């Protein structure tokens, strides 16, 4: 029998995240391991009158491309792919790996070349997403490989994933609508802040955020979701930060990263493990030493590190500060080929000051956001409950 949580996740994607309407062309991207969710989403899309089709790949073909493909084949983008992007009203990405480390041994230069080529496509995709021409949401279908990364059994991991998405409840959309109101209110309050100071173990860093917009990640682009984020001022970050969780980029881990910022730039960096990789990423381009994002993780169903950024960056009580490209919609100006989310656990010892006032301690904001700010400012009602 089908897990009812899969059906609810599909319904949430179709109705809440993507807001599918009659006649919308939806492409569902996944690996074959994600088929149960692909099929459920396909059915949910049919029910609202949308025009869904599946774009499913097979685990294993990526490795073959790296092993047998010439540089030219590795970086090839077909006219079919280019034409396809222009036709979509909505895109769902279902991550569903059967081996998260399958590309670990691939030559890093070739890997970088592949990613750079794919980025041309994803840039055009993001252009259409940010113009409002198409919707996108990324989610995950639990597999043993992801469970293994998280050091859980598949059953435990399924419980973890579905609770984080709130599809263990009857009406997950109601939950996410309430979360959306709360996060938007929080974002509006943070929008008035000029400077943030983050204090934690081996961490004392100041970031300028004046004039930048904070955005609520409320389940439209990711499921699960639950963060507020912005892009800090590019030249103002000062101080030191220690990332307690391993920092993962394209499947490679760097452990115990410490960074020192001066005038917005990383001027010193070290890691206990993976230091070479850290240094090579910092040297990627002109923007890779500058923060592109600062964010509060606020999904308290996510209570542990699982080596997957979709979940880790939302762990309730953490902050993440990403090196590399910023968000234009926040006012961010940093451009880079890198966007590397690194997570700082502030749940045990951690304080955040906004313009000198303590607003966050041990992983919690000290005050509820004033929801009326949202109501008057953005015309949204109070959440129920």
């Amino acid at each position, binding site marked *: 029998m089908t897990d009812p949580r899969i059906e609810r996740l599909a319904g949430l994607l179709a109705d809440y995240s993507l807001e599918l309407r009659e006649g919308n*062309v939806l492409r569902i991207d996944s690996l074959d391991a994600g088929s149960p969710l692909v099929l459920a989403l396909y059915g949910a899309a049919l029910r609202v009158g949308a025009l869904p*089709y*599946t774009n499913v790949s*097979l685990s294993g*073909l990526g490795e*073959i491309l790296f092993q047998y493909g010439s540089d030219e*084949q590795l970086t090839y983008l*077909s*006219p*079919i792919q280019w034409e396809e992007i222009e036709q979509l009203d909505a895109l769902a990405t279902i991550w569903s790996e059967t081996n998260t480390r399958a590309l670990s041994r691939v030559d890093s230069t070739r890997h970088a070349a592949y990613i750079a080529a794919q980025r041309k496509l994803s840039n055009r995709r993001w252009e259409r997403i940010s113009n409002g021409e198409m919707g996108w949401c990324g989610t995950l279908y639990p597999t043993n490989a992801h469970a293994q990364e998280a050091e859980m059994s598949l059953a435990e991991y399924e419980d973890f994933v579905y609770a984080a998405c709130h599809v263990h409840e009857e009406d997950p959309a109601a939950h996410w609508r309430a979360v959306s109101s709360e996060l938007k209110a929080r974002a509006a309050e943070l929008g008035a802040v000029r400077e943030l100071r983050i204090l934690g173990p081996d961490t004392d860093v100041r970031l300028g955020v004046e004039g930048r917009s904070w955005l609520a990640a409320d389940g439209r682009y990711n499921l699960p979701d639950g963060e507020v984020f912005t892009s800090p001022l590019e030249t103002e970050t000062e101080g030191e930060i220690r990332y307690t969780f391993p920092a993962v980029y394209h499947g490679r881990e760097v452990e115990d990263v410490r960074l020192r910022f001066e005038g917005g730039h990383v001027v010193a960096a070290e890691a206990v493990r993976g230091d070479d990789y850290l240094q090579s990423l910092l040297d990627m381009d002109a923007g890779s030493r500058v923060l592109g994002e600062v964010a509060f993780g606020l999904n308290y169903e996510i209570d542990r590190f699982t080596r997957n950024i979709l979940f880790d960056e939302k762990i309730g009580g953490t902050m993440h500060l990403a090196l590399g490209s910023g968000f234009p919609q926040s006012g961010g100006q940093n451009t880079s080929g890198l966007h590397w989310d690194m997570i700082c656990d502030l749940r045990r010892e951690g304080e955040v000051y906004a313009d000198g006032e303590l607003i966050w301690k041990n992983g919690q904001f000290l005050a509820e956001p004033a929801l009326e700010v949202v109501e008057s400012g953005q015309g949204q009602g109070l959440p129920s409950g």
Partner: protein
Amino acid sequence: MSSNRLERLADVLVGYCTRVRTGDLVCVDTGPAAASLVEAVWRRVLEAGGHPHLRLDVDGAPDLLLRDGTDEQLTWVSPVRRSEVERADVRIAIYADVNTRANGGVDPERQARLERSHDPIRRTHLARVGSGDLRGVVTLYPTQAAAQDADMSLPEYEDFVFRAGLLDHEDPRGEWEALGRAYGRLAGQLGQSAELRIVGEGTDLTLGVEGRTWVPSDGRENFPDGEVFTGPIETSVDGTISFTYPSSFAGRRISGVQLEFRGGEVVRSDAVEGEAFLRQMLALDEGARRAGEFAFGLNEAVTEFTGHTLFDEKIGGTVHLALGASYPETGGQVQSALHWDLVCDLRNGSEVYADGELVYRDGRFLNGVV
């Protein structure tokens, strides 16, 4: 299938059937069950300098669409399908059904609407194949479902599929090339005939074929292969034909089909099983009542009926007639969203006359050309 067999099949598909060259965009169209064959094909395509592109239908999605889709959804053709058929240099389609009867309960009229809506795609495909712009092959990856239709275990069915492709020979490519030459000679002889008459049990049918091209089918477009085919003159088919084998089309089984043609058109149709579906398909469009293809099955390694047209129509000693669309390269002009092959076994006491002369008896050409 064992990896050795997969490699041999992939080698023939990429190196012989579709002759993938540097820079070719190669669209592989299949289901998840064929994953291991897709991997082998991927390696060969990359080695040949091509760019592999995957189109994979998730098992169950097409069935949901047929069952639950609105009219708009049912007749919608995804723009990517159009891009693929227009852009690909090579298409490798691999049947890999996990349930060949999943659509058994679907209203045939809905199936017909779906087929009609995809007709433009099919026409583009046929035209590009006909002009040589697109090299396309259709093959099958043995699944439990296909084995079940053949009344075989999966290992038995794998053996059957492997042998049907002559992959058990030292040099399968060489075998197919040699067969291709023999088929070519036969096609040349048949091309000199103006009229064929097929006589067998429940069958007495004449077809005009004057000026039409017979195409030797040597494993380039179907794999396995083994037939020569043409498109009969559209108004020339007269008489009755009984089809020996049950036929599967769009997940339905039809058996005991007998058709009567007059002036090239089906004027009477009977079936023991699936008659309503047969009538629905005959009414699909203008061309669905006409014979778009007539062919001799010549593959001696395929001797028994297994319930899949890819193999059944190749059985050495059979002929098949397709209702619906012609292949443009034969000179045939029937246009239709339908192309439905029905197979007639001629191995027992049947005869074929070419312009009045007996040329074929009990499943064999008398001049020994094949």
